[in-house]
């Protein structure tokens, strides 16, 4: 039995005068424990609408959603809270609450009328803090933490809620890169080690493709794709869904192509490895595509010298030595504009 089973689901909003605005129609989806699924798609494609419908915040226009085999139309919000927990985008602003306090609030669906915590609850909270690796600041106040730390606390709270399914709505939107990667790493581990199902929406396509077991891709036209990230790239789904004008997904390199005005070609020789890679990147940035051909307008030769690396840049008629790329690139650009 799957964590999520979606049967002929149509999602969208009801309009005032009996009208409907359908966002996605006739969706059939399944999700199992141990899976990390990333929901990706352009802005306004219906990611939030889908998450809201799955968590019962928005009634489906048609079709059914089953969580752990139970139809969400027929379960109370308290029962549902035992099946699915949520982490939202916005960092929580709450004063005078410790990390442990916030985590303990996750026990809400399980505690008695006054919310007193039994030993079992304390064990669950401690285990959740351990799983996220934040037990060492359990007694710090939430308002003293950074946004990234706070988001980890909210994930620990979701764990303490002890639901098999955790849904996260753009949990890393406000975070810097290392935190984004760390949070994704934590979520991946939760799926693998604790056998939870993790469904999250994100705008970080690159990170999602490198972590998720499956991607759910929503397009603005209401089409929906489900599959391993690599399959979706090979089928051309990613480049089709995420292309806007000149910005396109480069399936060969697995990244977005940033449009630059092409100025010519460059031949890069000498040192290999990271020096070659970053020299190529630098040349590409200013519009010189790397090629093996002798006919290239610019020839960059990378040689290690005693103290540092040296870039010998040769253009028709001139040769110059540089100890870094900053000066080298600058020289090529001034040369080009002058010529």
């Amino acid at each position, binding site marked *: 039995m799957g964590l999520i089973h979606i049967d002929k689901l149509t999602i969208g909003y009801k309009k005032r005068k009996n009208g409907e605005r359908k966002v996605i129609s006739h969706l059939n989806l399944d999700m199992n424990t141990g899976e990390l699924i990333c929901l990706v798609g352009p802005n306004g494609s219906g990611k939030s609408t889908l998450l809201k419908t799955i968590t019962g915040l928005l009634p489906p226009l048609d079709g059914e959603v089953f969580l752990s085999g139970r139809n969400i139309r027929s379960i*109370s*919000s308290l029962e549902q809270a035992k099946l699915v927990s949520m982490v939202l985008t916005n960092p929580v602003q709450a004063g005078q609450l410790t990390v442990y306090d916030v985590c303990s609030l996750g026990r809400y669906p399980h505690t008695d*009328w006054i*919310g007193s915590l039994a030993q079992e609850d304390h064990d669950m909270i401690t285990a959740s803090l351990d799983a996220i690796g934040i037990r060492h600041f359990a007694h710090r106040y939430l308002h003293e933490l950074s946004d990234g730390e706070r988001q980890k606390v909210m994930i620990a709270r979701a764990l303490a809620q002890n639901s098999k399914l955790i849904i996260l709505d753009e949990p890393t939107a406000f975070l810097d890169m290392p935190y984004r990667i760390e949070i994704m790493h934590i979520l991946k581990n939760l799926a693998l080690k604790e056998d939870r199902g993790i469904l999250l929406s994100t705008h970080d396509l690159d990170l999602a493709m490198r972590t998720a077991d499956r991607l759910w891709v929503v397009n603005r036209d209401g089409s929906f794709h489900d599959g391993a990230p690599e399959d979706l790239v090979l089928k051309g789904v990613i480049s089709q869904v995420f292309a806007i004008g000149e910005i396109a997904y480069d399936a060969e390199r697995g990244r977005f192509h940033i449009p630059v005005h092409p100025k010519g070609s460059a031949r890069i020789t000498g040192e290999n490895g990271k020096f070659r890679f970053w020299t190529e990147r630098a040349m590409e940035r200013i519009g010189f595509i790397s090629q093996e051909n002798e006919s290239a307008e610019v020839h960059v030769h990378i040689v290690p010298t005693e103290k540092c690396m040296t870039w010998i840049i040769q253009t028709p008629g001139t040769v110059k030595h540089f100890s870094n790329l900053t000066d080298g690139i600058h020289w090529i650009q001034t040369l080009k504009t002058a010529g």
Partner: protein
Amino acid sequence: MILSGHFSIRIAGIMTFLLILLIILFFLELVLGSVAIPYQEIFRILTGHGSSHDSWIMIIYNFRLPKAVVGLCAGACLAIAGLFMQTLFRNPLAGPDVLGLSAGASLGVAIVVLSAGTAGASSILGNLGFFGSVGIAIAASFGSGLVLLMILAVSKRVQSSMTLLILGLMFGYTANSFISILMHFALAERIQAYTIWSFGSFGGATWDQIQVLVLFAVFGLICSIFLIKHLNVLLLGDQYAESMGLNLIRTRNKIFIITAVLSGVVTAFCGPIGFIGISVPHLCRALFATANHCILIPACILLGACLALTADIIASVPGYSITLPLNAITSLIGAPVVIWIIFSKSRNGMEVSV
């Protein structure tokens, strides 16, 4: 929510201190007044041994003791009502009056006082007689009850609590503008009667009325214990609370009803008392360094009662035969607290602390 060892000792310590302070203030309220009564005599009167002066028994039983009991209840109720509103709306400047309940109560009283017949007005003027003050209490309850019904009707259809906060404020403004219109056409002596009511007072209630006040206050405070769990989870915001299984609209309505009972009954008997509801929850959070309602609710009851009694003692100006308007004193104590909150919060870099 967990409390580590030294933390719970600290909390128990402050709580005991507040309780002792409350007992002292309650006794001071009985001792201090325009007529000097030795405290030994007060003990004798309270323990039922009588006194050498019959008038002293009269003063204690019919004037100072009712005032102390009303003050205690009013402070506790308003502080809890304020705490509820701050938690529900996640707004540090919310108080029991943000829903427009006290404005509704004021409108009810204004209609009775400003447009009633001369006989009614004059009896209200001196707060004399059973009919006068009960009439005011009924008018006030009716006014705040009506506002509550409007809020509950809207609450079903509105998802965002912020919208309700704005609606409550709008109800308040509307009620206040009706009052202004009524005052514009009213006779000077009735305006004065209304103004005196709006100054607020813990005095003037008979024991029959105090029974009603205490009954509602105790009922409201007991009900609030059942809300502790829900209030705590609301600290993370409406959306998180709902995702954890909280029925937002039902819980919100329960909070509204209890707030209306607590602040409505106080406004009915004491007039619109300001600032206690805003300042006490903040003081409690700062004192106990927690947002856990398990601690904040008893703390607010104790500190609210302490502040109300302190304000009343100051307002009655011990040793003189004059009394100051109670609301002026609560604001004199309350305003510096609110200023302190704003400054300390901006220093801590916290935007909202509820």
